[in-house]
């Protein structure tokens, strides 16, 4: 019994089987191969995702950076346009005809109404010019006839003169009233000599 058992032993050990692998293996079909996920795809997908996320992040940083820039520029634009409007406002008042005429009178200028000369194309003088006379001056107090409450001492020396005249008509133009207007001391200080020579002269009509 025991010998029979001994002859039934396997002809080779299992170790031997491992040393000599079988030469037949199951080959996967082409479609199976194609369906199998490849690492490179996964890498591309992940890399792409990160690229998109990074791009999105950069874009949003860039956008919000732009938002701050816009906000800052808008603020400075607003400040500048406020400055511009404020300056234009003063300019419009300074160039109002009352102010220009009054300031010109302070400088001793007169209107040239009707004093212009004309030369004709055929030669000769078709209208002789004449000297502008004192009759065409505009009194410095003209602003009283064509009032403009925007001409204030802060805007024009004319405003200081008008304010002084309004405050004390009898002593208009004297240094006392001009000095009393402390806010316009610097401007009226320089113009008061001119005002003194013009104001006391009688206003003829």
């Amino acid at each position, binding site marked *: 019994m025991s010998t029979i058992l001994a002859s039934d032993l396997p002809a080779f050990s299992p170790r031997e089987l491992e040393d000599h692998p079988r030469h037949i293996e199951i080959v996967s079909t082409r479609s199976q191969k194609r369906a199998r996920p490849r690492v490179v795809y996964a890498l591309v997908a992940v890399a792409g995702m990160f690229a998109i996320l990074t791009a999105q992040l950069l874009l949003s940083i860039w*956008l*919000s950076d*732009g*938002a*701050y820039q*816009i*906000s800052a520029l808008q603020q400075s634009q607003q400040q500048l346009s*406020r*400055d511009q*409007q*404020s300056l234009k*406002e003063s300019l*419009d*008042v300074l*160039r*109002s*005809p*009352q102010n220009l*005429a009054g300031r010109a009178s302070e400088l001793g200028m007169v*209107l*040239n*109404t*009707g*004093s*212009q000369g*004309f030369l*004709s194309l055929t030669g000769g003088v*078709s*209208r*002789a010019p*004449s000297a502008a006379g004192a009759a065409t001056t*505009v009194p410095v107090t*003209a602003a009283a*006839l*064509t*009032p*403009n*409450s*925007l*001409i204030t001492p802060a805007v024009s020396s004319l405003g200081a003169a008008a304010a002084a005249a309004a405050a004390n008509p009898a002593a208009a133009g004297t240094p006392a009233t001009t000095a009393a207007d402390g806010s316009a001391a610097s401007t009226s200080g320089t113009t008061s000599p001119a005002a003194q020579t013009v104001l006391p002269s009688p206003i003829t*009509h």
Partner: protein
Amino acid sequence: MTNPRSSRVRLTFALLIVFAIVAVFAVRLVDIQIVRADQLNADSLSKRSIKSTTYAARGDIVDSNGVVLAGTVQRYDVTVAPVNMQKGFLRTAKDGTKTTVTLLDIANEIATATKQDQAVVYKKLTESPQSNYALLAGAVDLPTRRAIESLKIPGIIFQLHPVRTYPDGSVAGNLVGYMNTDGPGGGLELGDNKCLASTNGSTTYQQGADGVQIPGSVVTSTASDPGGTLKLTIDSDLNWFAQQAIAEQGTAIGAQSGTAIVLRVKDFHLMAVADWPSVDPNNINGTPIGNVGSLAFTAQYEPGSVFKAMSAATIIDTGTGSATMQATVPWHWVAPDGAIVNDFAPHPIQHLTLTGVLQESSNVGISMLGSLVPEQTRLAYMKKFGLDQTTAVKFLGEATGSIQKLPWDSQTHYNVLYGQGVSATALQVAQIFATLGNGGLRLPTTLVESCTKPDGTVTEAPSTTGIRVVSESTAKTVTNMLESVVQGGELARSLVIPGYRVAGKSGTAEVASHGRYTGDRVVSFAGVAPAENPQYVVVVTYTKPATMKSSAAAAPTFTKIMSQVLTKYRVPPSTTPSTYPATSW
């Protein structure tokens, strides 16, 4: 050991509680997600989003050279929430030191910046300490705002407060009108409000924690619509000159009021419409209400002898007579139908032509000759000349003047020939002379040249279709006849402008009051220059002068303004000396 029954009860109890809690959650979920979803969404949006008003400016009124007569400037209301101010604040200086600024200090600093009384500001801050709103100063200008901002007081909010400004003050202030606190109050501001009015827009955006707008979150719900620019035909410099001239002379002769008009003949554009006294629209409260508005448009008066020019044109155009038509003129005349006509002053019997009648301004002469034309024809001519109707300007409150209905009574039959018993505005008188200057063609008088919207579309382009009133030869003849007034009339000395041929007519009309003519006068002078090629019409009127009750008061102003017009617009001098038809026979 455990009682299976009691454990089942506890299990059931626990389950019930779990179900109840889940049910409560479910109800709450439905409530939040479905029932109150809209409300909550809106609330959350309003927490994140800021609604801002896009301010649209009211349109400017500019003169023909683009000089701003009425504009809008920004002012700022200084507001605070007193509830946040009561404890003062800590001010950190540049070097890092911290100082406590008390409420009194705040009031003091703001009052200094806004030039107010410190007590007033302090009172506003403490009046109702729990309030969220207090107006510390209304409509401060930019330098003041900057001064307050530099104080770095937290919690001060500046609210935009646009204010209307009139840089030229009373120059053309009679025309542009003014703004009340609640809208346009008069003149073109009201009359052309449709062009000038603006609509503010609104924009909604979301902002981050630091107050910066989140990109892409802007929603414009209403687009802003700025007002259009109203361009006038007025020249502000000339308007000032005219205003100054009538103001000086008006003060000298003690007149109640005066007007001066400069009209360009070729297109009937008004270059200047001056009134004295005139309103300064910056300071409406400082002007008597009667001076607000333009007397040149709104005041109708009996124009007097300036109408003789129109009567002469009617006589010649109907073929009734010519420039040398003869009349034997006493100073006092009783007409066949019983009416009585007197000349201004007694004189011996004169042998005058129609030209002489104009030169001497004889009421009797024009009555004798003018009454040869039937009333109906005369009325038709008066209406063609633009009387008894407003001008094409259709100024706010413009008067039409009035002519009595036909048939006229025996006195009116003659009176209208020399401008009594009939009323007109200074503008209508200017139109008569411009029609004669323009070869008998009356164009629509224009004050508003155009209205330009910000997108460039131009509206309100005025009509240019004219009305033929008298023939070209009639117009030329009458203008030539009117040169006699300037060259040889009693006012000649104050009317001649060297180098130019001027044609014009004086008017001294009696002012009627309670059905009787009084000692008051409206004195005027209307004329065109150069007479051989008329380019500009000037009309000057003074109402109720105290010291000089004749047109001699208006003539020097006419000459002054006309000289300035000819100088300013570089009108070439006349090439031929002034001649006119014979005045006597």
